[in-house]
Structure formats: C-alpha cells, structure tokens
C-alpha cells in the first residue's frame, strides 16, 4: 500500500510566502559559501546532505488530502482539502482526456478545510468520470452541494459533468471501497468528525484527523487504541502541543504529538504520521516537533519501536 500526501495543513491553507522563501535562500547561500557549488548536481547534493529538511524544503501549505493506493485502477482519497487540486491535475495529466476514471473519496467531516478543494477538483468537470463520496457525516451531500453554489462559487453542482454519488457510511460497519475494507469511527470534534481504518493486502492505515482525545478518559483512550490496533500507519491530528490542547485550546477538537505517540504505543501500531499541522507553525517549528516526537517515543518506549513521520505535501510512504 502506498500513501501519498497532497495536503497536510490544518484549518486553512498556509503558503510559505516571500519572507519564508527569502529566509531559506539567505540561510542556504551563507551555508554554501566557499563550497564551489558550480553545478546543479553539486548544489542538489549540498541540499540533501548539509541542509535540514526545513532549510531546503517546506512541509507545504495545502489542507487535508491523502491518496491511498491499494494497487487497483480506481483512486482512493481521504478528504478534499486544497491539496486535491494538485492531485487532480496530476491524475488528469496522467490519463489525459477521454479516459474515464473512478475516484472514491472518504470524508472525515465537512468543515471547510476538508472540502474546499472540491470546486477545483478537475475530474468533476469531465464527462464519463465517476466520483463516489463516502462519509459517516450526516451532512456530506448538502455541504458539498452548497459549496458549489452562488454566490460562493460560479459553477453550480448540477453543472458538473462527472457522475457524482454520495454514500452514507455507518460507524463501526465494514465496507468494501476501492478494493479496501473501510471502517469508520466517531471522533470528538465540533459538528462531528469521523476517522477511517482502511485495510488492504494485509496492511492497515488509519486516517484520523480533526479528533480530540481526553487523556483522563481511560475508556475512551482504550477504545481509540483498539481502532488503531496493530496499524501499519496512523495518520494523526497533531495540530497542537499537549499543553495547549488541554488548556486554552481544550474542546477545540484537535490533538497533539504526545497523545499520538501514547495511543500508537497502546495500540502497538508500527508508524505514526503527524498530520493537520497548525498553520501558524513554520517549517522549522514542525521539524522541531518531529524530532521531539521521535525523542518522546524513544524515552517512553516499552515495546517495539514506533516510526514517526511528519507529513508534508508530496510525502510518499510505503507500508
């Protein structure tokens, strides 16, 4: 199973901006001084070997969209944040016109950052394409239809040329979607949110974003750990620090890196991917959080190691 991240920010898109690019450029030029980087190959090697990820790249600014490749010809996505635009351009470029495709999309909920990419989802404009939208959320269809509606968007939903279907899922029930077995679970988040466990070919990935966890509620923590049980990868809402998530941002519906590690350790999951990054966090701050999370996993480990990743727009993980 291959997991490709197209959008990884929480709440709203967060482009890097001029100052951010300038800061990286100045830093890299200073570090490169005197190193004779007179060919692209030497410069590339310097970026890979002597700069940190945050110095040479960016975690990106698009909101939630993750592709799960189970090996079939259809596409399977989680959420339709702004990252889906990049995905759709890539898919259309790959297939060209006149080659109808089927796209299956699991939606965690209908907050704007998770559906805002749909009006720009190019396959929806192409006749012959089939787009199947699935969610446990009761308002999926109305939210998607209302978004493609004047005065918020000039193209009405009814004008979209693809065949678009809505499928309501019941939490806790297994469904066969795009060749995978999918089970949804209720999550703690304002206006409702749902996580999905996706299993295919003996591998399991859990997509769980926009979900708060109460560490004092042992039963709830155990229930979540059971949902994560033995997963090969858990894509986890780690938007806030633990201190923020249980003080000033308590009941804001998000979680932290610390809780992510604790739940994955309870579940004996194999890897954790920090996701739904706080939009005000710089690349340097996200990279720091990644290193700290790996250290936290190390000092609290009692069983097998848990691999820790930080999602970025363009990350590809094989499980």
């Amino acid at each position, binding site marked *: 199973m291959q997991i490709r991240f197209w959008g990884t920010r929480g709440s709203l898109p967060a482009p890097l901006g001029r100052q951010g690019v300038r800061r990286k450029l100045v830093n890299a030029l200073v570090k490169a001084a005197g190193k004779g980087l007179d060919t692209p190959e030497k410069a590339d090697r310097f970026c890979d070997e002597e700069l940190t990820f945050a110095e040479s790249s960016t975690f990106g600014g698009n909101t939630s969209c993750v592709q799960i490749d189970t090996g079939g010809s259809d596409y399977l996505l989680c959420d339709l944040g702004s990252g889906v635009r990049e995905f759709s351009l890539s898919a259309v470029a790959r297939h060209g016109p006149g080659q109808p495709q089927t796209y299956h999309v699991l939606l965690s909920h209908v907050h704007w950052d998770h559906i805002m990419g749909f009006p720009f989802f190019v396959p929806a404009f192409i006749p012959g394409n089939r787009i199947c939208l699935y969610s446990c959320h009761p308002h999926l269809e109305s939210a998607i239809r209302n978004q493609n509606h004047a005065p918020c968007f000039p193209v009405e939903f009814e004008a979209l040329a693809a065949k678009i279907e809505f499928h309501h899922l019941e939490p806790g029930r297994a469904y066969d979607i795009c060749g995978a077995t999918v089970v949804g679970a209720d999550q703690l988040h304002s206006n409702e949110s749902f996580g999905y466990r996706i299993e295919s070919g003996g591998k399991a990935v859990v997509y769980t974003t926009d979900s708060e966890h109460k*560490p004092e509620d042992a039963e709830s923590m155990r229930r979540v750990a059971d949902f994560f049980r033995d997963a090969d990868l858990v894509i986890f809402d780690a938007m806030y620090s*633990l*201190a923020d998530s*249980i003080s000033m941002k308590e009941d804001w519906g998000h979680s*932290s890196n*610390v809780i992510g590690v604790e739940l994955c350790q309870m579940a004996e999951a194999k890897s954790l991917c920090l996701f739904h990054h706080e939009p005000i966090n710089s690349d340097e701050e996200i990279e720091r959080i990644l290193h*700290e999370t790996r250290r936290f996993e190390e*000092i609290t480990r009692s069983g097998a190691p848990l691999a820790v990743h930080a999602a970025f727009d363009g990350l590809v993980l094989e499980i």
Partner: protein
Amino acid sequence: MTYEKTALEGALIVTPRVDRVDMTNADAFKEALLEAVGLASTVLVVDMSHLDYISSAGLRSLMIAHKAAKSDQKTLSLAALRPLTTEIFTISRFNLVFTLYGGVREALTALAPDSVAQFDGL
C-alpha cells in the same frame, strides 16, 4: 497516593512518593495536588524528584491543580525534575505553563525567601 507534606512559613512543599504517573494513577495524583492547593497559604512547591515518568493524563492533573491554584491566587511551582521528566515537559510545552526550578531550595528562594532558613534547618 503517598505524598509528604512539609509546611513552612509562607510555603508548602509536597513530595509525591511515586515514580510514575500515568492513566492508572492520574486521578489520585490530581486529588493529592488539589488537596495540597487547598492547604497551601500562598506558595505550593511540588518536589518532583521521585518521578521518572509522567504521561499526558498526569500532566493534565498538574494543569488542573495549576488552574485551581491560580483561581485561589496561589502559586504552584515544580522543582527537582529528573532529566527525562524535564524532557517530557519541554516536548509537551508544559515548560511554558510552569516555572521549573532545579531544586526545592531554589524554588523557595524565588517564591518564599522567608522560608529558606527554616527549610535549611530541616
């Protein structure tokens, strides 16, 4: 949960005799801290020197006690954290919530200087 209380002039020192606070004993930890907040006059110093590990549930107990102290216009501070516990405070950003003192005496010097001589005589 077993914890020692040392009452000084202007400060109360509480020493939890536990090496680990997690989901299994976080409630008892919270109750012990809240009781200490009630007993303290103005300054409460929690001696963390026995603690090897504190989970998110334990940190939440500290947060609740911190809020209770604040609403009573009292100060709850932490002292003598072991290196791994200090790391957990940094990673969770609880180091931004609490002032962490290297030792109990250091905390008293900063928060209740009149109690230091009494502490030295213990």
